[in-house]
Every structure is written in structure tokens, then in C-alpha cells.
């Protein structure tokens, strides 16, 4: 039996091309192939190229289930037949290989002369991370569980309660300032500090490294 099942690795997992022939037999051949190399296929994300074949929901759904029973995830079906494409879409499968996702946080290019800075005009909630080689300015809060890593200084117009690392590439002149400064952990270059327990409302503060020590001062504009 020379039913062709071609497999190659692509960016999004594996691309399996099924040759001509009866659907049942081709499917058997594919499953046999997977069974032979079960450990290789375990947890694999698979896109299936089915050529001109017209497949209905039962065919595709059936194969998806059989694959999933074997630990293989079918995420896309590529076909020349609009009918099959439609079926795949009905089953929630992709019909194109994916387009790369846009980055969630894009550095803003302000085109102003000076040092590179990114402005983030929103509250950073738990799980969000900003990493930037220049300075970072946030208008909003930085909640616990959020993280800012900046090559330069960090300015937070709001409450800073997450983790912040200024001067991440070793710049000891970097500073951190916030309207309310209660970070989970604050680092400047190679120095680490945690916020001491304190009560009451705090004032805007600025933190810098003085004589190898992290020092926080209340912001006083004289």
C-alpha cells in the first residue's frame, strides 16, 4: 500500500499532507503512522493539508477526535475546496497557517529629540510586563504582579505596587519615582530593596542609589 502521508515541521507545529485515495484508507494510514511513532506525535499541533477532497463535518470531526485521543491536536485544515474549508471553519479549525500576532505593548515612537522613553497610559494589572531599553513612564497604577524592567529610569504617575527594575543594564544613575511608592520589590542596577511596612498615606517619592545603597526621599519641590 503506497498511500502518501507526508509530514514536515513548520513554525506552528507539524504540517501533514494527505495524498489521493479513499478518505477511510488515508485516515487509517495516517493513524497507523502516528501509532508507530506515538511519542514523537504526543502533544503535537497539526495542520492538515487535504488537497481537493470534499469533507463533511463528520469526517473532519471524527478525525479530530481520533487525533485528540492520541494526544495530537488538530488546529488547521488546508484545502482547495471551499466546501471543506467551510466545514473546517464550522468546526472552529483554522484554514490558513497563522499570521504572527502583533506585540501587545508596542514602544511608542514619539520622534522627539532626547533619550528614548516609552509612555504607557494605562494601569498595568497583574501579569503584565513592560521591558524597554530606555526610560518607562506610566500614567496609571502598577498593580502587584505587574513588572517593569527599564534600561533607564521609571516614572509612575500613580501607585507603584508591582516589581520594578530601573537601570536593568547596570545604570546606577537610574531613578524610580511614583506618586505612591509601595513596590513589591524595587531594583536599581544590581541593588534590591523591598518596601518596609508603613501606615497612612504616603507622599510622592523618588528612589535612587546613593553610595551603593537604595535611598527613598519624599519629593519636595522647593
Amino acid at each position, binding site marked *: 500500500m503506497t498511500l502518501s502521508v507526508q509530514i514536515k515541521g513548520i513554525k506552528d507545529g507539524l504540517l501533514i499532507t494527505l495524498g489521493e485515495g479513499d478518505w477511510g484508507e488515508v485516515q487509517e494510514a495516517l493513524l497507523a503512522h502516528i501509532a508507530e511513532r506515538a511519542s514523537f506525535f504526543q502533544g503535537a499541533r497539526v495542520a492538515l493539508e487535504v488537497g481537493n477532497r470534499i469533507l463533511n463535518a463528520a469526517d473532519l470531526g471524527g478525525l479530530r477526535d481520533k487525533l485528540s485521543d492520541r494526544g495530537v491536536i488538530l488546529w488547521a485544515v488546508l484545502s482547495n475546496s471551499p466546501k471543506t474549508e467551510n466545514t473546517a471553519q464550522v468546526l*472552529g479549525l483554522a484554514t490558513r497557517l497563522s499570521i504572527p500576532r502583533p506585540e501587545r505593548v508596542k514602544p511608542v515612537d514619539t520622534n522627539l529629540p532626547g533619550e528614548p522613553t516609552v509612555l504607557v497610559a494605562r494601569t498595568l494589572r*497583574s501579569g503584565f510586563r513592560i521591558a524597554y531599553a530606555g526610560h518607562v513612564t506610566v500614567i496609571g*497604577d502598577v498593580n502587584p*504582579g505587574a513588572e517593569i524592567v527599564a534600561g533607564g529610569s521609571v516614572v509612575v504617575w500613580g501607585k507603584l505596587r508591582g516589581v520594578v527594575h530601573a537601570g536593568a543594564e547596570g545604570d546606577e544613575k537610574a531613578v524610580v519615582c511614583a506618586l505612591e511608592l509601595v513596590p513589591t520589590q524595587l531594583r536599581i542596577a544590581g541593588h534590591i530593596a523591598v518596601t518596609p511596612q508603613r501606615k497612612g498615606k504616603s507622599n510622592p517619592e523618588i528612589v535612587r542609589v546613593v553610595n551603593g545603597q537604595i535611598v527613598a526621599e519624599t519629593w519636595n519641590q522647593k
Partner: protein
Amino acid sequence: MAATVVTISSGKGGVGKTTTTANLAVALANGGLKVVCIDGDIGLRNLDVVLGLENRIVYDLVDVVEGRCRLRQAMIRDKRLPELYLIPAAQTRDKSAVTPSDMVRLVDELRGEFDFILIDSPAGIERGFRNAIAPADVVVVVTNPEVSAVRDADRIIGLVEAEEKGPARLVINRMNPGMVKRGDMMDAEDVLELLAIELIGVVPEDENVVVSTNRGQPVALDPKSRAGKAFTNIARRLRGEQVPFLDLDEKSDLFSKLSRMLRPGGD
């Protein structure tokens, strides 16, 4: 009729997502609306138990998605409230049996027939959560007044914002007024100070909830339960009504009301 699709989520497990879903569904249906709730927790289903409908499951969500039955066949009608339906989750499969686009399609099929579609999200931020919020018009985040639950709620709110589902709304569950008074528990203000979203309800801790969950009789059906009253108020707020928040202090008799009036900064 165009349904409002409400997904109930939390991030952390055990804060009361399923209890909230069941009680909101009951309260909305009790108000004369057509309601269907969908259990999104495939593999760890609970909503059927809390609603007391476990023994009537024939088909489930995965059967519908995979074409083994029609949507109608998987909908269990509650006998207490004729306009309340449940679509149960499958127990023998896992979250990967359903995709976010399956959920959108399924919910779109229901939109025309119901006033409210409630989706009970599983804990976590993975596939099950993505499935549950994909069709949502409104996301209700449930949290408890404790740091770990609030932290997870913050994460969920961030993910909901990233999906452009609009601002999430907050329910604080299991508030213990006595502990708040002693300074041993965060109060609603502390929680809101961090999460900064619209609060649509504070549910007091109530032993009746455990009893009712075990019996499959949601507390919203019990007019005497304080938690049930709080859930009913949340349901009314979801319908767009302005409802004042409950005074959670249980001993709100004349004396304490008077003493509060005499020292307004006292609590």
C-alpha cells in the same frame, strides 16, 4: 429578543463562580426572564449539581459541539422556574474538546431566544477561560476579600481588557462584616482601590450557601437568606436597575443605627 451574554470568571478557584452563576440565573429567571446557563468547566462540571439538575443530564456541551445532538436536546429545563435552562459541561472530556469559536457559534444560536445567557468560567487563565469569555458581552469577575483572590481577579481583569470585552464588573463574595469591623478582613473599599472597576455586588458570608449548594437549591430561591438577597440585587443591577447596596452589618438594629448617626466617622 437579544440576549445579554454574561460570563462569570475569577482566575482563582473556590471563590464562588459557580454559586454566583447559579444564583444569578435563578434570580433573573425568578424575575420573569428567559435564562440559559452554560457550564464552561468541561471535565470538572459543578453547575448542574448546584442547580440540582445533575440527574437529568443526557447530552452535554461537547455533544452539541461535536454534532451528536441538537442544541435543544442538551438544554435541561429547571422544574422550579420554567424559563431557566442549563447546558451542562461534559465530565469525561477536557477543555480542549471545545474552542472559543465553537462557543461563539453556540451562543449565537441561543441569542435570539433568551434574555440572559450566563456562562460559568472554569478557574485559570487557559483554554477553558478563553472559551468562556469568547462570546461574552459582559464579564463579571468574582473575588473574595483576601489578597490572593484579589490578585488573581486583577490578572483576569487585565486579560478581559486585552480581549476588548469592555470593563469587567466586580462581585465580592463571602464578605464577613464582623471580621471587617475587627480589621481582620479587607473591606470592599480596599478591594476596589486595587481593582478599580465597577462594583455590582457584595455577598455576605452565609452558611445557608453551603447547605443550599449541597441540596441543589440555590439561596436566591430563599427569601430569608441574606446572601440570596444580595444575589437577587446583583441580578437586578445586571438588568440595569439602580439598587442600593445591602447593609451587611447583621446587627443593624435601632441602637447601632443611632450610635452610627451619633458618630458618623465610626465605621
